[in-house]
């Protein structure tokens, strides 16, 4: 056709080559980015526990459902924690039925207790309404609104 045709053909393949190299580069960077932010989330200020070890001593709460928390997420109970919707709560719930500080968990004499902090919508401990405080046993489920948390005393 004309003397510029080779350039047109080169441009066509060059265009596709640059296009794909660019996309490949973005994909690689995005993938690396994905791995980088997959590191531990620190949303609550509480550190997620590593997978349970045999010699682990600390009791923890495991998230079963809801509340804007990830299912299976674990919270260390060392030193006691407060749970609620307020930003001041140690474990912050995104749950409409949760009060600012809904319950607190604490230990006394080596035993763990859960106490309802006069919440508006109440707390269920193993499907029973919780009044005041109650001792926690292995596998007890604390329910706040749509959020379910299971108690595990840890250890072996």
């Amino acid at each position, binding site marked *: 056709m*004309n003397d*510029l045709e080779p*350039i*047109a*053909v080169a*441009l*066509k*393949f*060059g*265009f*596709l080559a*640059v*296009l*794909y*190299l*660019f*996309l490949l*580069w*973005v*994909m690689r*960077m*995005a993938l690396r980015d*994905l791995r980088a*932010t997959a*590191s*531990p*989330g*620190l*949303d609550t200020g509480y550190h997620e526990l590593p997978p349970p070890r045999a010699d682990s001593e600390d009791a923890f709460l495991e998230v079963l459902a809801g509340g*804007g928390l990830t299912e299976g997420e674990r919270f260390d109970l060392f030193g006691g924690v407060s749970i609620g919707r307020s930003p001041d709560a140690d474990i912050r719930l*995104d*749950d*409409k*039925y949760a009060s600012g500080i809904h319950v607190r968990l604490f230990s006394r004499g080596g035993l763990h207790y859960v106490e309802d902090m006069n919440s508006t919508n109440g707390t269920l401990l193993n499907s029973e309404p919780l009044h005041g405080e109650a001792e926690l046993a292995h596998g007890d489920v604390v329910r706040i*609104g*749509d959020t379910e948390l299971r108690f595990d005393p840890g250890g072996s």
Partner: protein
Amino acid sequence: MSARNRELLALIPVALLVTAGFAAVLIVESNQLGNLSVLYGVYFLALCLITHLVIRRRLPDADPFLFPLVALLAAFGMVMIYRIDDGLARDQANWFVLGLVLFAATIVFLRDYEVLERYRYVIATVGIGLLLLPRLPGIGAQTNDAYLSIQFGSLSFQPTELAKICIIVFLASYLREKREVLVVGARRIAGITFPPLKHLGPLLVVWGASMVMLVFIRDLGSSLMFFAAFLALLYVATARISFVIIGMTMFVVGAWFFANTVGHVQERFDIWLDPFDKADSAGYQIAQSMFAQADGGLTGRGLGEALLQLPAVSPACAADFPNCGAILPAPHTDFIYAVIVNELGLFGAAAVVMIYGMIAARGFKTAIIADDGFSKLLATGLTTVLALQAFVIIGGVTRVIPLTGVTLPFISYGGSSIIANFVILALLLMISDKARRRVREQNEAYEAEYA
């Protein structure tokens, strides 16, 4: 490398592609290799750099890939439209600049997108008003049977494009508040969790609205786009797949019903199922689009090489050819994807689809790392509506679904589309900036504590 430097680096290949694209088109059109293509490339790069500086100043932590990917789509659009008609390309370039200005304005003046949550009912009303505008006598205009645009003198505008932002903002804030209510008291039947009947209310209302859109605005594409975006948001808000299954079933049943009863919807379906049956009349566009795509092959005919107009017939319209001898009608709007396939082949087309895929991936990533409900839902909604729009038109042109006249985001010619999509991009980047800043600060605090 910081996010912004990464963005800056990514803009260089984009500018290179614009230059190469224009160079190829100019060679074919005027058989010369001047410095015009370099000039266009430099203009484009300069515009992107200014925008980049705005992002650098205001949203230092925002996602680094979204803007370059969008710029790449815009580059595709600019080259393709220039190749179709350089007058249109000049308009499109103006719209592109205006889009970038609005993009910057959104970022600078909105500052905190969370205020949108407070005005949700106002925003919803505006959105519905915009959707109904094209049916108003006097300013409403009909294109290809569908009521999608309004006309002020010579200026035409598609309010659906802006309406989609309003509706997503409303749905995000509404579902953010009501999501707990929607999941309470569900029952499990045959492994699927069904919501109680009374909570299907919102689903029914939105379904009804999308059916009304189907009949009154006569556009399956927009109707599908809005409804599917709603289902996506509902799914993200409640984690109940049953809502999606029920909703999709309802939509298919509704669309099927109207396809069999309402004439114009029926015709759309007929030419979708068999465009070659009416290849000389109603099915002409789709049939020609299929031919153009098949003609593209693996690597295409080359930029600027697609045959769009029969030279002998144009401009004087000959009765023998419908659409004034245009081989591919509406190549700059609805069928721009077919032109891309014809000129860059399967590889080029796959790249375009991949760009949309990557934008969607970055958008959903933003939704995942955002920590409050409204940001999550808004990012999901905006990303979904963008991706669905690309799906609806690419699907229509490739005959996956019935063809409807929505634009290919950032590529197609059209002011309202470019502007609306840049506002969506601005909102996405604002959400991304907030979410990523939080992650970065946490990581820094973590490192400071343990390093």
